Structure formats: structure tokens, C-alpha cells
């Protein structure tokens, strides 16, 4: 910090922000604290029942990874100032597309998966363009596409296969390619860590890099922070938002492909309510509902909390019916804690 100042204007503003106070201003701090706290709680109540074993760790990380992939993408979109409620339906749609193309039309599964990716990108593109063109809130547009996509998925799958579920996908041509990329696991100390965990971490890392270290990341923050001001200085706000919608749909496709590969079947109802859980994870991770502020790491940590609670309850022998109560309460507490921390941090900086 340089010390030259105007004598009268900068007076009381020269207190240096300490490292702790700097840390407090990071959006993901609340989620990090929450993750540690949840881990400690379950380590105490379920530590002797397998929560602390490598296999136990692998099991909650797998649950976290599916959600984490979605939550990170949703976080970027939320920072960019928009919502996507259609990702849950997109998971069902992408899975059904792959299964129908593979089982009815004989398309090799790896190619079917690529086509499904194309479909997902198209859906994301349409969502984005609709939001930009109509100037309606993305909440409304994607609430519409939530039902349209789910309905189309169920109706078309029933037309082509006569059912709403398609099984035995591992018997089809091209499944091996998918298994290598999405269905494998890494043995560590006798426990199997599914490869989806690697996807989750990789996507969180790439998203963080994009947000913090690229021009596009700067544009994402500005699009959500104040789209008008961003446009005034030449940021292509519409392009940024459409790209984020496409990325979110692509994340749903990735989750669909991983799940389809692991369980070897597709179900048109897969992904139901995932959009809400992903948004909860993103919000727990410190992402503002109003846009312009947040972090991909935070969303990944939010997903980690979700996974630990979901599996921890099972290990602790608590009735799993209570999980949703936990989830809802956690959301509200997390937002309150995040707001409190942000207020304190702002005060500390002044």
C-alpha cells in the first residue's frame, strides 16, 4: 500500500485489511465452515459405524459429485444473474435420449451420448435466447421448460419404447467407451472411488479458474452485478448469459451420462427435484440469488455438505425420512450465516 494520500479525503481509511478479514470476505467461507462442522458431527455420531472409513468417504463423495457437477454450473449461471430450473428435467431428457437412440435406433451408445450433448446444448441455447429476447425472469422461462422437457421425455420415450424406463444398456454397442470415461472407479486403500468424483473436482477447478482468472469470468460477474453498466463498457452480456445456460444444460447431460453408465439404465423421471437441490447447494456455497457474487468452490462445498448429510444420516442409523427436514433447515441457516459473515466483513473493511 502506498501511503501518499490527499490530506483531507483519505483520513480514516488507511487501516490495512488483515488476512483473517480478507478470508471473511470470500463467499465460500461459510460453506467451508459448514462442511467441517457437518463432518465433525457425523464423525462423532456415526464415526464407529463406517462414516470415517474410506468406503464411507467414497460413498458420500459419490453422492456429492453428482450434485456438485450441477451445483458448480448453476453457481456460474447464478453469478451471471440467471436461474435454470430445467436442469432436473434435462437429466431425464439426456438419459432418455441416449437410451432411446441406443436401444431403438441402434446408435452406438457413445455416439448417442454425443448427440444427447448436442440436444442439451440446444436446450440451453433456447433457454438463454428466450430469457434474453422476452426479458422475462429466467425463473419463469425455465419453470416452463422444466415441465415441457419432462413431458416430452416421458411422452416420446413411451412412444418409442412403450415404457418409461430402459434397462440393460450395458448390452448395447458402444457402452464400453462410456464405462471407461464415466463409469469407472479408482481403488484407493481397498475402497473404490467413482470417477464421477474426478469429474466433479475437475469441473469445480475449471469453473473457478474461469471465474477468477479469465476475461469471461469478469464478464460473468458483471452480467449478474449490473447488466446495463456492463453493456455500457462493451461486455457482450447476452452472449455471456446464453453461454452459461448452455454450460448448465451440458452439466445436466454429464450427470445423466454418468448415472446411466453406472446403473446401466435410463429412467424418464431421473433428476426430478435436482434443480432445487443444486440451487440449495449453490446458495449454501455463498452464491447470491440476485447474482453478481459467489464462487464455484462454494457450490462444490455446498454439494459436499449435502452428500455428507445424506450418507451420514444413513450411517448414523437415523431414519432417512428426516433428510429433507435437514436440507431445508440447512438452506435457511446457511443463508443467514452467509449474510452475517458478509455484513461483518463489510464492516471490517470500512
Amino acid at each position, binding site marked *: 500500500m502506498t501511503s501518499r494520500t490527499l490530506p483531507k479525503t483519505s483520513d480514516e*481509511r488507511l487501516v490495512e485489511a488483515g488476512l483473517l478479514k480478507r478470508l471473511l470476505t470470500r463467499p465460500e467461507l461459510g460453506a467451508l465452515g459448514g462442511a467441517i462442522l457437518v463432518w465433525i458431527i457425523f464423525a462423532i455420531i456415526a464415526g464407529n459405524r463406517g462414516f470415517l472409513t474410506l468406503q464411507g468417504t467414497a460413498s458420500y463423495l459419490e453422492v456429492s459429485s453428482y450434485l456438485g457437477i450441477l451445483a458448480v454450473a448453476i453457481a456460474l449461471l447464478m453469478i451471471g444473474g440467471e436461474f435454470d430450473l430445467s436442469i432436473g428435467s434435462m437429466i431425464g431428457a439426456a438419459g432418455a435420449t441416449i437410451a432411446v437412440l441406443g436401444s431403438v435406433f441402434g446408435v452406438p451408445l457413445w455416439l448417442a451420448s454425443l448427440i444427447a450433448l448436442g440436444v442439451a446444448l440446444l436446450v440451453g441455447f433456447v433457454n438463454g435466447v428466450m430469457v434474453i429476447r422476452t426479458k422475462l425472469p429466467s425463473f419463469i422461462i425455465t419453470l416452463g421448460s422444466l415441465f415441457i422437457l419432462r413431458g416430452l421425455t416421458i411422452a416420446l420415450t413411451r412412444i418409442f419404447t412403450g415404457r418409461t424406463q430402459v434397462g440393460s444398456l450395458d448390452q448395447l454397442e458402444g457402452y464400453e467407451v462410456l464405462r471407461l470415461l464415466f463409469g469407472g472407479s479408482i481403488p484407493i486403500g481397498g475402497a473404490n472411488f467413482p470417477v464421477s468424483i474426478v469429474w466433479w473436482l475437475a469441473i469445480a477447478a475449471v469453473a473457478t479458474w474461469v471465474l*477468477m*482468472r479469465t476475461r469471461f469470468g469478469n464478464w460473468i*460477474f458483471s452480467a449478474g*452485478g449490473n447488466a446495463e453498466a456492463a453493456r455500457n463498457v462493451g*461486455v457482450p452480456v447476452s452472449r455471456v448469459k446464453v453461454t452459461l445456460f448452455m454450460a448448465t444444460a451440458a452439466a445436466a447431460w454429464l450427470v445423466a451420462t454418468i448415472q446411466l453408465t453406472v446403473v446401466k439404465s435410463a429412467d424418464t423421471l431421473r433428476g426430478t427435484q435436482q434443480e432445487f437441490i443444486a440451487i440449495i447447494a449453490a446458495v449454501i456455497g455463498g452464491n447470491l440469488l440476485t447474482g453478481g457474487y459467489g464462487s464455484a468452490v462454494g457450490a462444490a462445498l455446498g454439494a459436499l455438505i449435502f452428500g455428507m448429510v445424506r450418507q451420514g444420516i444413513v450411517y448414523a442409523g437415523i431414519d432417512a425420512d428426516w433428510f429433507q427436514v435437514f436440507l431445508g433447515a440447512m438452506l435457511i441457516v446457511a443463508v443467514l450465516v452467509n449474510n452475517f459473515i458478509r455484513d461483518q466483513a463489510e464492516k471490517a473493511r470500512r
Partner: protein
Amino acid sequence: MTDRVPLLEVRNISKYFGNVIALKDVSMSVYASEVMCLLGDNGAGKSTLIKILSGVHKPSEGEYLVEGKPVDFNSPRDALDHGIATVYQDLAMIPLMSIARNFFLGSEPTKGWGPFRRFDIDFANRTARAEMAKMGIDIRDPSQPVGTLSGGERQSVAIARAVYFGAKVLILDEPTAALGVKQAGVVLRYIAQARARGLGVIFITHNPHHAYAVGDRFTILKRGRTFGTFTKEELSREEMVRMMSGADELDALSHELSEFARRDAAETARIDKQLAKSLEEAEEIFEHDGSPEQKG
């Protein structure tokens, strides 16, 4: 000053919106190292003139010259490319983003190549702080959110940004309007600073005190027309206030107000009279029926 070519000049500019005359025959200019104040009450046409100068609107009639050459702007980007930067009062900054990120928004410096091309955040932080220091303001931490800055400091970031990206003419749209006395003083100081660095500043305000403090010349707008341009020597602050608000109108207004007061008095007297009458009547009724005390 007349022997130099103005950085920016408009001659007999008019602007019509349908059959509404927003501006009529307005001329003004700004030279390097000069603060030109554009004064006027609400609805005087200041906003329209700024929008023409900054390339948002095209004038219906008249000439627009930059450094003596006629120009025809199709967008704010065109104006920026000619070194004319406009700082709007409220749309300048994104509060949740850091100072450095705001400073370079839309023109981010990058390093590396291909997929590794990245936002050079160190350069952005360093430059933002250095440029702010040139404006005479020290920011502790360029990575702190703009929202933590005061209103005056936010304006100064926007000004510093415009200067850094090569502005020769700075158009400031009511930069002091939403600020307290002290913060307004801070902004006025930055305006003086920008002038000292050789920029032409067009300072829009409806506060004659702020204008008189930093202005070299004054163009006064009223109802879409101009009273002309005056130097500080030609115009006292009191005359300026009279011209802006229109002394005749003020006289008319005070006459109207006193008329109200007179009518008010008459009305009050009438109501009082009526009230007294109805009270009398009520008392008469009481006398006939007997009061509650007599009954009990």
C-alpha cells in the same frame, strides 16, 4: 483561448423528438485543460445534449466537431474511439466487483496464449492503484469491492478509468448530484485534477456552487435553448443562479404563493364564521333540551 482549436465543439445543434423541441440552436465548445460547466434546471435539455455529445442520439440539425473535424457518431463506442468518454452518475460501477475488475471491465488485460490466455489480475491491480494515485486518491486494496467505496470515490474510479483508456474529453453527468457536501468536494477536486492533466472536462450540474468552484466557462441551458457561454469574469454566481432558475419565474412564483396565502385567509375566515354559527345553533338546542348535568 479563441486562437486554439477546441477539443469538442457543437454549432447550432437542435434535437426534435416528434414535435417536441428538446434542444434548439445550442452551441458550445470545450478546450484542452478547461472545465466547461453545463448548467440548467431539470428539463432544460442537459440530458439530451449529453446524449448527443456521447453518441447516444444524433442531432436533428447542426454540426458536431472533434478537434475541428466534423464527426457523425452512430454509437457511444464511436465517441469513445474519438476520445470522448462519458461518466454516468449511477451506471458507472458494479458494486460487488473489485475496483480493479471494474476498472478494466470490458477491456481486460490478458497474458498467456490459447486456452491459457488469462486475465492479468496483477497488472489490473497494479495499474488501477497507480491510476487512482495519479488522481490523488490512495486505495488500500484494489481487490476490495467498489461497494465499499464512498459515492465520491466511485465517481473517481470511473473518471480515472476514462482517463486511462485515452479520453481527451470527459463528460461528467451530474457527478455531485447524489453526494454530500464533503464527498462532492472530493469529486470537484478530481475534476480539477483531470483539467491539470490536460483534459477537456464537460461538467454537467444543476448546482451553481459546484459549478462556480471548478468551472472556467459556463454554458447555461433553459428550456432547450442556451443563454450563451460566459467566462468566470463575465458572470457572478448570483447572476448565474438568476439565469438558471429564471428570475422572472421566481417573481411570478412568489406572487402566486402570496395569492394562495390571501385566498387561504379568506377561506379560513369563512369557515370560522360558519363554525361559530353552528356552535350557536347547538347551544340553542341544548338550552331547549336541558344539559346532561341538569338531568343527573
